[in-house]
């Protein structure tokens, strides 16, 4: 029994064989192994197949708008920093619609974990190209195949100095779990790009494809070396899996904002301070 299992049987809306199933298990195991209590965990998601994840995890859920899981997660964290806050959604949601939030929340560095289910396609809306779709992939909006370059999330994350950047493949659940654990444990903004096959709409990036096109981050790689990490990010033959970049030295946004352990809803408006404020306008 995992405390994050739903208390009752749930009709899961994913297709049989969908990569989201293994990831659900991986996430729940990671949370359990970290010793988390469901009551301290909030999963904020957007909209998409990936974004349904929190529907199936027994924890707090904020299932918001397509593309907006990151600002919502940040708001939650700032209001109560005792919570473990995960933002979780698909590649279309976080890299496409919500791309601007990724860029700028990284600059702030709140202690939240961003899990992106990267299936290189828009699953829920039935097979349009996502930002990470490979060139040439046929889809309803580009019948002759994708004619734009894919988005490189690792490179972009490096460029905006995300202090924890990793990539994992649900085809290797053990590694994926450890990476997710490391990301959640990391104090700061952590991004994990997860390869999660869509078996219905992406017939080219299959479990096998991900197996064939990935390799572990080279052992000699120093994750604190950003330039080296960028070179890894540019690899196209075999996409490196593991922790690509890590910088433990960045200060948290919460700390820089002077946020204490007391959640905001416990804050009281000091009458003395208020009278002082008014006095300033006498």
């Amino acid at each position, binding site marked *: 029994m995992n405390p994050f299992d739903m208390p009752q049987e*749930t009709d899961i*809306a994913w297709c049989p064989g969908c990569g989201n199933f293994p990831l659900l298990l991986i996430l729940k195991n990671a949370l359990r192994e970290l010793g988390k209590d*469901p*009551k*301290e965990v*909030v999963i*904020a998601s957007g*909209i998409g197949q990936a974004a*349904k994840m*929190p*529907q199936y995890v*027994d*924890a*707090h*859920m*904020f*299932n*918001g*708008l397509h593309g*907006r899981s990151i*600002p*919502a*997660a*940040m*708001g*939650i964290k*700032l*209001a*109560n920093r*005792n*919570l473990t806050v995960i933002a979780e959604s698909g590649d279309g949601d976080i890299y496409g619609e919500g791309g*601007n*939030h990724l*860029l*700028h*929340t990284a600059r*702030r560095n709140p202690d939240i974990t961003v899990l992106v289910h990267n299936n290189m396609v828009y699953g829920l809306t039935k097979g349009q190209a996502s930002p990470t779709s490979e060139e040439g992939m046929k889809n309803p909006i580009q019948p002759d195949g994708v004619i734009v370059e894919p988005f490189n999330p690792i490179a972009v994350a490096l460029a905006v100095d995300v202090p924890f950047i990793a990539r994992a493949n649900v085809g290797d659940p053990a590694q994926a779990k450890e990476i997710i654990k490391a990301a959640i444990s990391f104090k700061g903004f952590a991004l994990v790009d997860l390869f999660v096959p869509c078996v219905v709409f992406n017939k080219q990036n299959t479990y096998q494809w991900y197996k064939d096109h990935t390799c572990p981050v080279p052992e000699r790689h120093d994750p604190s070396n950003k330039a080296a990490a960028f070179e890894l990010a540019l690899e196209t033959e075999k996409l490196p899996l593991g922790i690509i970049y890590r910088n433990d030295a960045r200060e948290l946004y919460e700390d820089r*904002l*002077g*946020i*204490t352990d007391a*959640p*905001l*809803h416990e*804050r*009281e*408006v*000091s009458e003395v*301070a*208020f009278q*002082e*404020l*008014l006095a300033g*306008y*006498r």
Partner: protein
Amino acid sequence: MSQYSKDVSIAVGGSAGQGIQTVEAALVKILKDAGYGVFACKEYMSRVRGGSNSVEVRVSSTSAPRRAYVRRIDFLFAMDAASLEHLRWRIGEGTIVFGERAQVGDPGPVRFVDTPILRFANEAGGNPIYSNTVALGTILGLLGTPFSGAEDYLRSVFARKGEDIVGKNVEAARKGYEFGKHAAFVEDISIPLTPSEEKKDDIILDGTTALGIGAVAGGCDFISSYPMSPATGVLAFLAKEAKRFGIVVDQAEDEISAINAGIGASYAGARALVTTSGGGFDLMQEGVSLSGMIETPIVIHIGQRPGPATGLPTRTEQGDLNLALHAGHGEFARAIFAPGTLSEAVGTMQQAFETADRYQIPVFVLSDQYFLDSVTAVDLDELPRIPVKRHIARTTEDYLRYALTKDGLSPRGIPGHGDGLVCVDSDEHDESGHITESFAMRRSMMEKRTSRLTALRKDAIMPHAFDNLEGAETAVISWGSTCGTLVETLSRLGSAKLGGLHFSQVYPINPEVKKLLVGKEVIVIESNHSGQFADLLGRELGVKVSRRILKSTGEPFSVEELIEELRSEA
């Protein structure tokens, strides 16, 4: 009767960067402390340097304070030729223009007092930047208030800049003051206003500050916003006060982020605010819809300015009522406030948080540039205070965020506060907050989200009736920033036929309002092009509006303009 018997209207015109707003601030403070009623407002171009801007300061007695923009200018201080041109259309018979011929050039056919502003500035401080202080001194001299007020003020304001600067400013002011006194004598100016002896416990606010103070008093814990005129001030105010009150202030990368962060914070228990103007608000609308769906409170301040699109970024309009009313796709409950006085601003901002939390809905506060930049003194004894009730429930293990109840309101739990889990979902959801495709559940949840409108309606703030509305044949209606102008207009028209009604809550409208209007002609005053509130009165109350007095040039209504419009009805 002297033209100054009720009030004196002073305008100072100059270019951006010349600091005419410091003259305004000084005048307001010194004159208030001297026992006068004061009002100030400004108009300025969308540029950081150059152009032509102006401030208006109205001085009155405290017993009959003025709180509105008038076209009339008694003393016009022109800091350069362009601003004299800019304000020329407001020069009337009674206007005396003050300026230095060397700066202003030929002033044309006006009553002109050549005022050595720059010369005095150079003499006193060796620097043109003392010009403002000279102008300030001249005005005080004209009014004949004791110089000590100016001196005290300048000492306290410039204290941290050192004795030298203080001294130069006092000297500059004194030169102006003496000149002003002399000019008053020469021009035969005598101001019959008597300052009040009584020391009132009051403070000087502008609309921005009043809303900011209201937000602090209302328990605002969190604000995330993106700068946009004229709404940025509220963000800057809270930023300044963040440390003192432990408020979290986040500058967002865009308005979408701002409202989603706000709703996230609110979900986790914070009272959250966003501030923006129409264009930025457009981008927040999906967030408004989310707030409606997940029943998570959020307060949205829209500082209106003339649209469409970028429009006139530093000007004023009340053009976004319909926008707020219908913002966000789908149907759900909401409330909209629009304060008309600064004390209402302090109050409605608190009420906005209370209403948002109590009814678990998005709540709007509409203001506009004219209102945000208007200054008056506010009596501290009358400062509205509403206790901060959080309306948050500690959850139990079997907690259901959307438990169906009679009034549609479920106890609001937040994560990390109790034994339950708090699940909210932008999809249609069941009582536990999880996605559903049940049509029966959909029906219940639609009912749940909309039925609270009944209670909201009953709770809606009644409009403020004035000028003997009850006995009047015609009700003249204002909402938001036009309040002060209408109040002065009706009092000056002094017609028993006309009564006033000011709405500080514009939606929903209390059904009791209908009784106030029964059998009366209804005229609505609005700073917009189509009469959006007039339409709303029709929709909400079935009230037929017989006349709409509208303006959408980017300028506020002046009292004179409204008097002209309403004279035929009086």
